[in-house]
């Protein structure tokens, strides 16, 4: 059992706060991804779990034991670094077995374990090579192998794919997921790439400015973001965030964006009624919920007209950008719907997937 718990963990560098009191419970065998923009405290959090950074305040527990003052080597963790950090003067075999040799594990067991892990990662042929004779992807595998071979309680990954080219990155992402499905070790993974976070994680932790914005499954974060930051950060292309107002007329609630006024679906109306007439509201609507006109519309879907400024063909769909109340809005439309820059286009907004955000607090209402 190796759950990881963070209790009100705070980190200051001199006087500058990097992590401002975060609570997080990571279950045994879970794959958790910390994601956020640079400087959000995700790497610092990971390094505190590893024991490479002191904790200013709070507690970190691994397997139920407080490890605040336990040195890294006694925490039974393994870490994969962004730049691999392979020992340049050792062969792949020596790199992978370094930790075991320090622990004085018997030679034949070391060699058995290295062979087994090399088999999982497909690097059995490379064991006698030095790191400089390996490609980027192979080095990445060796770095993972070095972590796996020690059979630790927790794996820590610090942006392990950001040094690889785009194609290899996608490939290695799948490899990491496969490896986790095989070895089932509790994993904490740091990345700034939200696609990596969504594809790998059991649960994603979105961090911003030293706080945790939201913790949830990829599905929850995508469909029910709790803050404006999460709404804008998760998803590509990003969610449209359009300033709006709510007005109540003749018992029905309408969403006003610029010169558009769209009725709010009745099941949402009860939730939003209290905010009618309030200023400082933002309408969050994902690009896939703005699409080309269709013959049959569901309740909650409303037509409107827009003039696209840019049309980006993606093959399976076209991304259409048009201005609305001073904001650029993105819609995903059928490539055959005839969208042209500069000519008016009938679009549909699906307000059943609306996220109404209070601009002053940044919370989703």
């Amino acid at each position: 059992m190796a759950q990881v718990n963070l209790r009100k963990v705070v980190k200051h560098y001199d006087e500058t706060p990097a992590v401002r009191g975060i609570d997080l419970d990571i279950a045994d065998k879970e794959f958790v991804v910390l994601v956020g923009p640079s400087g959000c405290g995700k790497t610092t959090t990971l390094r505190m779990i590893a024991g490479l950074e002191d904790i200013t305040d709070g507690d970190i527990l691994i397997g139920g034991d407080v490890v605040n003052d336990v040195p890294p080597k006694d925490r039974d963790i393994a870490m994969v670094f962004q730049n691999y950090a392979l020992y340049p003067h050792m062969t792949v075999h020596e790199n992978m077995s370094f930790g075991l040799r320090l622990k004085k594990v018997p030679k034949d067991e070391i060699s058995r374990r290295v062979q087994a892990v090399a088999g999982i990662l497909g690097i059995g042929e490379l064991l006698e090579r030095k790191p400089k004779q390996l490609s980027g992807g192979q080095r990445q595998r060796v770095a993972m192998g070095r972590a796996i071979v020690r059979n630790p309680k927790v794996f820590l990954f610090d942006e392990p794919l950001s040094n690889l080219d785009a194609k290899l990155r996608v490939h290695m992402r799948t490899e990491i997921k496969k490896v986790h499905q095989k070895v089932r070790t509790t994993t904490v993974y740091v990345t700034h790439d939200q696609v990596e976070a969504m594809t790998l994680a059991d649960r994603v932790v979105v961090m911003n400015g030293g706080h945790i914005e939201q913790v949830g499954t990829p599905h929850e974060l995508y469909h029910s973001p709790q803050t404006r930051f999460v709404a804008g950060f998760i998803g590509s292309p990003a969610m449209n965030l359009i300033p709006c107002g709510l007005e109540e007329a003749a018992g029905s609630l309408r969403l006003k964006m610029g010169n558009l006024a769209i009725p709010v679906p009745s099941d949402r109306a009860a939730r939003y009624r209290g905010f009618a007439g309030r200023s400082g509201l933002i309408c969050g609507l994902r690009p896939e919920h703005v699409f080309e006109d269709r013959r049959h519309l569901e309740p909650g879907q409303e037509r409107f007209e827009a003039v696209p400024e840019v049309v980006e063909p993606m093959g399976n769909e076209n991304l259409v950008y048009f201005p609305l109340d001073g904001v650029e809005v993105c819609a995903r439309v059928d490539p055959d719907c005839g969208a042209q820059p500069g000519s008016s286009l009938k679009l549909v907004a699906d307000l059943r997937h609306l996220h109404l955000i209070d601009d002053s607090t940044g919370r989703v209402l």
Partner: protein
Amino acid sequence: MAAIAPTAGTARSARARSLKHDRRRALYWSYFFLVLFAVFFLTPPIYMLITSLKSSAEVGAITNPWWVYNPTLDNYKALLTSVEYLTFFRNSAIVSLVVVVVTMLISIPAAFALARMKFWGSATLATGVFLTYLIPETLLFIPLFKIFAWANETFDVSLMNHWWLLIIVYPTLTVPFCTWIMIGYFASIPKELDEAALIDGAGYLQILTKIFIPVALPGIIAAMIFAFTVSWADFLYPMAFTTSADQMVLPAGIVTTLIKGDVYAWGQIMGACLLGAMPPLLIYAFLMDYYIAGLTAGATKG
């Protein structure tokens, strides 16, 4: 388009020509200066070699100083059968080798501590180490006399006129500089490497011996060459601190025993110097390639 293409082609070939021209001119100048330096630095050893092959009579005679008319190996024979000269050689060898070992034993851990274990005042200390190197030995040998005299009075240990005294004194010249260049070398090792080792279960001593020393070997060899050269060639301290012939090292020994009053045994002096220059020369010749070779390649991305 048709009109533009040939113009672009001409411009490109003109550019290539001018690059080639620039390169050739740069090479001419490089060779000019290289030859100039080679002549400048090789003239003294060649003159030494010529003189060492002459008899005393020929050195004294008014003939062409750049030519040997009656070559003889007598000077070398005399040197290699002289107990004194061989003693100087032995003393120099022992002193230099021990100084290299002592310097490494002090400098490597010091550089590791100053480069990696951030403690209060470590940056100031690192600069301080380098500043001590800037104090010339000519300023230090008189205070050192005082220290030796004090040691003699207080502990009744006679330090003066012993060849092993140099083993104590030379590290004051070699340790600061070697520590300084190794701080630079250690600092260039990616921090993730020690963090990975730390997580793998290594202590600081193991990180030093199993990671830093092998990875920084080129830098350590450079420092060793420096320490060896300094202790092999130093002249002032052995002149000041050793007086009897059996306690001297080469640089002081050659000057004191081969110059008797105003009689200079030029042939032997030159031969002795040439033979004395051999060990550093051999070390440079064999270790140069090794210490230029980049060992850190492949540690991290790049």
